[in-house]
C-alpha cells in the first residue's frame, strides 16, 4: 500500500516538475531532427564545400536516419539520463523528504524500488513514443524505411539504459552528492565503452550492448544473447544492491 502511494507520488513528481521536460525533450529533439539531418547532410556539405565531396558521398537512406536516432540514444540521451537521475535518492535525503516518508510505513526497499520503477516508466514511455515519432518523420523522406531495425535498436538501448539506471541508483544511495552519483554513472558508462575494445567483453558482457543499437538500427545482425542476459542479470543485482546500500545508511 505504501509502495503504491510513494510510486504514485514519484510519477506525479515527474509530470509536475522539470523531469517531464528533460528526457522526453531531448528524445523529441532527437526524433524530429535526426531524419532531416540524415536527409540533407549531403546537400549541406555540397553547399559548404562546393562539389568536392559530393561524388564521394552515397545518397542518404533510412539507415542514416536511424543512425542519428541510435547515436543520440547511446550518447546524448544516456548522459542526460545519468545526470538527471544522480540525485534521485540523495536529493530526498538532502532535502529531508526521505526522513519524512521513511518514518511512515514505507520501507527503504519500497523507496528505492519506487525510484527505479518510476524512472523506468518515464524512460520506456518517452523512448517508445519518440521512437514512433522517429519512424514517422523518417517515412516522410524515406518511405521504404522498415520498422523492425528501429524497434530492435531501441529495445536493445532500453535494456542497456535500465542497467545505467540501476548503476546510478546504487551511487545515489551510497553518496550524498547528486553530482557525485552522476559522476559514478558516467564513469561506469565510459568503462563499459573501453571494455568493448576487448573482444570477449564485447561478446559476453554488457559492454556488448553499448554500440549494439547502432548496428541493429542499420539492420546488421548482432549476437546479443549473452550481453543481453548479463545486462539483465546485472541490473537485477544492482537494484538489489541499491536497496541494501540504502538500508544500511543512517538518515
Amino acid at each position: 500500500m505504501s509502495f503504491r502511494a510513494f510510486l504514485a507520488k514519484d510519477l506525479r513528481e515527474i509530470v509536475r516538475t522539470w523531469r517531464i521536460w528533460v528526457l522526453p525533450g531531448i528524445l523529441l529533439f532527437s526524433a524530429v531532427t535526426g531524419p532531416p539531418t540524415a536527409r540533407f547532410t549531403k546537400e549541406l556539405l555540397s553547399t559548404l564545400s562546393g562539389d568536392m565531396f559530393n561524388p564521394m558521398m552515397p545518397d542518404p537512406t533510412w539507415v542514416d536516419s536511424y543512425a542519428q536516432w541510435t547515436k543520440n540514444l547511446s550518447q546524448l540521451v544516456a548522459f542526460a539520463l545519468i545526470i538527471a537521475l544522480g540525485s534521485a535518492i540523495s536529493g530526498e535525503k538532502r532535502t529531508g523528504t526521505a526522513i519524512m516518508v521513511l518514518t511512515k510505513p514505507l520501507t527503504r526497499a519500497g523507496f528505492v524500488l519506487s525510484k527505479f520503477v518510476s524512472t523506468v516508466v518515464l524512460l520506456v514511455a518517452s523512448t517508445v513514443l519518440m521512437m514512433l515519432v522517429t519512424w514517422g518523420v523518417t517515412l516522410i523522406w524515406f518511405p521504404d524505411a522498415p520498422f523492425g531495425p528501429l524497434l530492435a535498436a531501441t529495445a536493445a538501448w532500453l535494456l542497456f539504459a535500465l542497467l545505467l539506471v540501476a548503476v546510478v541508483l546504487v551511487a545515489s544511495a551510497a553518496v550524498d552528492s547528486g553530482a557525485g552519483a552522476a559522476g559514478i554513472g558516467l564513469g561506469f558508462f565510459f568503462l563499459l565503452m573501453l571494455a568493448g575494445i576487448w573482444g570477449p567483453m564485447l561478446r559476453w558482457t554488457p559492454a556488448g550492448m553499448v554500440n549494439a543499437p547502432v548496428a541493429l538500427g542499420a539492420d546488421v545482425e548482432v549476437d546479443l544473447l549473452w550481453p543481453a542476459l548479463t545486462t539483465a542479470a546485472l541490473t537485477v543485482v544492482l537494484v538489489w544492491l541499491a536497496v541494501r546500500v540504502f538500508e544500511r545508511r543512517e538518515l
Partner: protein
Amino acid sequence: MNVVETRDLTKLYGDVHALDGVTLTVPEGSVFGFLGPNGAGKTTMLRVLLGLARPTSGGATIFGHDVQSERDAVHARVGFLPDVPGFYPWMTGAEFLRFAGSLFGIPEPTLTERAHALLEMAGLAGNPNPVGGYSRGMKQRLGIAQALINAPDLLVLDEPTSALDPLGRADVLTMIGSLRGRTTVLFSSHLLGDVERICDQVAVLDRGRLVVQGSVAELRRAHGGSTTVRIAVTEGIDRVVAAVAAEPWCVRHAPVVDDGQATDVVVSDLAAARRAVPGIVAGLGVGLRRFDELEASLEEVFVGLVGVNR
C-alpha cells in the same frame, strides 16, 4: 504503562559519545519534554528511536516493539516532525497531507476528513499555494499536521519551535498543548520556557548522558536549590531589605520590577525566614502585604544540573 523505553542506549560517532548509556521511560499520556543544550544528543536519540540511525549498543522499544527490528510496527503508531521538515515543494499543503495519509493506507473518506480537519487546525485550509512558497512557520504547522495524519499514539517532535518567531512559537505550542490527553507527546527542545509551558514530564540530556528524569514539579523540588521568597510591604521597602540582608539565611536579594515596595529574597533556610520576616516587618512599623514562596523555574533547575559541568 510506558510508551517508550530505552536501555543503556549508546551511540558512538568515532570516539564521540552522542548517546552514552541512556535509560529512560516515557509514560503513556504524558507531554514529555526532552531537554538539553545544543549538541546534547537529543536529535540522535530521536533518530535512533525512529530507526533512522542504529545504536552502537543498548536498545529501545516503542509500544513494546523493538525500534530496529520492528520498524514498520513502530512507524504505524508514531507521528514524527523532524527539526527541519522537508516537503515536496510542488505539492500543496492539502496534497502533502493526503500523500502522507496514503502512506499509512488510510482509506477514504477518513483521509479527506482528517486532512481537512488538520489543515484547519494548522491554519492552512484553503491555501492553494505550493509548499515551496510557505514561510518557516507555515511549514512547521504543516509538519505537525502531517505528523498527526495517522492519529498517532505517540507524537515525536524534534525542536518544533526553535527556528520560529514568537508568534509562530506561540501557535505551535498551542497546537501541541491542545493534544494533551489525546496522545503521548515526546518533544525535544533547548528552549526551557517552551518545555515549562506545555510539558508535564521532563528528561534532561547533557553530552549524551541522561542527567535526570521526572515530572516538572519533582525536578523543581529536588533540584531547585535555594528557595526564593517575595516580600511585599506597604511602605519603607529599603529599610525592610536592609534588615533582611543582615539575617544569616539571606543569600541575596533583588528588587521586583513591577512593584516598587517588594523584593525577591533567595533564602538558605526557608523555615527561619518564615519565622523572622513578619517580626522584622512589624518591628519596622510597616504593613506586610505579601509573603510568597516562589517555585524554582525550570531554567534554574536546568542551569543547576547542566551548568555545573561547564
